[in-house]
């Protein structure tokens, strides 16, 4: 398929359709409103269903229903709207249902701003709902990667029976880049034998969320964590950028990593041995990448569009919090190349 120039918000909508998603339930919020706008016109063309819900709360509970009914289903929002969806995400997770949630993050907290941010890291990665659970969290750094990750998110959700969050930001949503759509489904996606379809002549299916007995509930949690172990083993993904000879490594994801990439160009031109470890999955965090490169890295320079929410995960991954330093911008600001270059020089202190 030839490349087309598409806005991130529309491209992720098309990606969902290409991956076989036929159901979208959502609510408008800047800077992701082009996702529902696009799908409101495109889903009906392929026999799909678009519902503009009365709220994000309703939207995610529609997702819960559609997922339970066996459909590939998507919702999208931006930070405050995702905060509203947390209840439903917890229910979907507890019921081991597959669903894809796109968050085009903006600055927060509260109503915050509409400019791009990454301050929903904790909400997505640590879980913003109640209880012991994880979301799989994918972090695209370009429109093409957002497309690829949305497609894969549906497969991951179906493989493991879990909600998958595609954690992008307003800049990726609003930006246009060339994209192509080449969905190849993963092998081994299980059939949805548990789906609510009416029992017909067979056994009835029940999607439960309440486990009144604590021992049963504990056991249920353990079953979830068995799935999480598999995800931890199989799904860690990252990019190593100029790390072979690097003595310093930026750790950055999404839009912030784009700025870092440009900054590395300037620093390398001056002879600094610096590269980037870019997590593509935030949960599971790419622990394996750190195990691979840690031997020759003196410091990890964490660059985020938040106040450093990823830092504890970087410290845990490299097992030395003294090796992790942070620079970030928040509230809707994107770090500039200059400030990233200056920060890195200060940390490296002329160590070329």
């Amino acid at each position: 398929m030839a490349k087309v120039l598409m806005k991130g918000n529309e491209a992720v909508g098309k990606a969902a359709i290409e991956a076989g998603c036929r159901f979208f339930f959502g609510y408008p919020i800047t800077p992701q409103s082009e996702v529902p706008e696009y799908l409101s016109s495109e889903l009906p063309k392929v026999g799909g269903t678009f519902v503009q819900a009365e709220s994000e709360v309703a939207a995610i509970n529609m997702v819960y229903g559609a997922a339970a009914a066996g459909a590939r289903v998507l919702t999208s929002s931006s930070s405050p709207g995702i905060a509203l969806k947390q209840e439903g995400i917890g229910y979907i997770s507890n019921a081991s249902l597959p669903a894809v949630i796109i968050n085009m993050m903006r600055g927060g907290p509260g109503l915050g701003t509409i400019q791009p941010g990454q301050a929903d890291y904790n909400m997505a990665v640590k879980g913003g709902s109640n209880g012991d659970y994880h979301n799989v969290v994918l972090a695209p750094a370009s429109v093409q990667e957002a497309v690829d990750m949305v497609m894969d998110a549906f497969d991951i959700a179906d493989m493991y029976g879990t909600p998958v969050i595609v954690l992008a930001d307003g800049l990726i949503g609003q930006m246009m880049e060339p994209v192509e759509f080449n969905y190849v489904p993963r092998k081994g996606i299980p059939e949805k034998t548990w789906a609510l379809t009416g029992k017909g002549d067979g056994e009835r299916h029940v999607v439960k969320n309440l486990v009144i007995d604590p021992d049963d509930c504990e056991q249920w949690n353990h079953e979830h964590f068995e799935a999480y172990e598999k995800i931890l083993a199989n799904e860690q993904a990252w990019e190593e950028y100029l790390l072979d000879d690097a003595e310093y490594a930026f750790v950055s994801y999404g839009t912030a990593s784009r700025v870092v990439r440009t900054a590395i160009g300037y620093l390398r031109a001056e002879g600094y041995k610096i590269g980037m470890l870019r997590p593509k999955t935030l949960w599971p965090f790419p622990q394996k990448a750190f195990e691979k490169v840690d031997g020759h890295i003196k410091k990890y320079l964490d660059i985020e569009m938040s106040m450093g929410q990823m830092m504890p995960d970087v410290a845990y991954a490299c097992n030395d919090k003294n090796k992790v330093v942070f620079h970030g911008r928040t509230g809707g600001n994107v770090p500039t190349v200059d400030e990233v270059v200056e920060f890195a020089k200060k940390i490296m202190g002329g160590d070329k």
Partner: protein
Amino acid sequence: MAVVFEKTKALTDVKLHYCPGCAHGIVHRLVAECLEEMDEVKNAIACVPVGCAVFANNYFNFDAIQCAHGRAPATATGIKRVHPDKMVLTYQGDGDLASIGTCEIVHAAARGEKVTTIFINNGIYGMTGGQMAPTTLPGMKATTAKAGRDPKINGNPLRVSEMLATLTGPAYIERVSVSTPAQVTQAKKAIKKALEIQKQGLGFTFVEVVSTCPTNWGLTPVKAMEFVRDKMIPYYPLGVFKDITAEEGK
């Protein structure tokens, strides 16, 4: 010998956990009988609430999902949009539907979602132990309104059927009760009609059942039935509030 009566196959053999005198058991059975008589048990999917009926899925012998508090109409929307040919119903109490889930029920009704909602209105929170409900009558005692609901402090009860009847989306709205044999017969007719209208794809259908909660009302089952007659029904009058099939016949 010919069988003249048997329990509906649309209920399981699990023993109900409801208190003596509670109307849930009666309404469960009416829903189940209607589905069986319509041969729709195989197509039915129930969205069960948070509240006393949270375990309704243990009793309904068909597909079911336990929903988040108040969100059953949204979850039902998701299911019905995926399976437009199935019978989708929500079964909700007054805290679930008329308090935390007011937004979801109003908009499911306004969209004309082709699902059926059974609304159990007993004017009190049962599962959590007798707190004030959005439908608690003025003067009625609750553990969060110990001297009785004072509209000046606690606001006024909602008449949900009347509210929803102002919308264009619903096809059928009726309020019934199950405190007398005649009322039970009428309640079954209403539920059957709602399900039939859903099957015809005509719009949203809603049956409110004015019910009892002897335990949290502090009354015997018999006194609770009398309370329904003397206090609840005067505030929540029974009857049909909307019926587009009747309007069409005019």
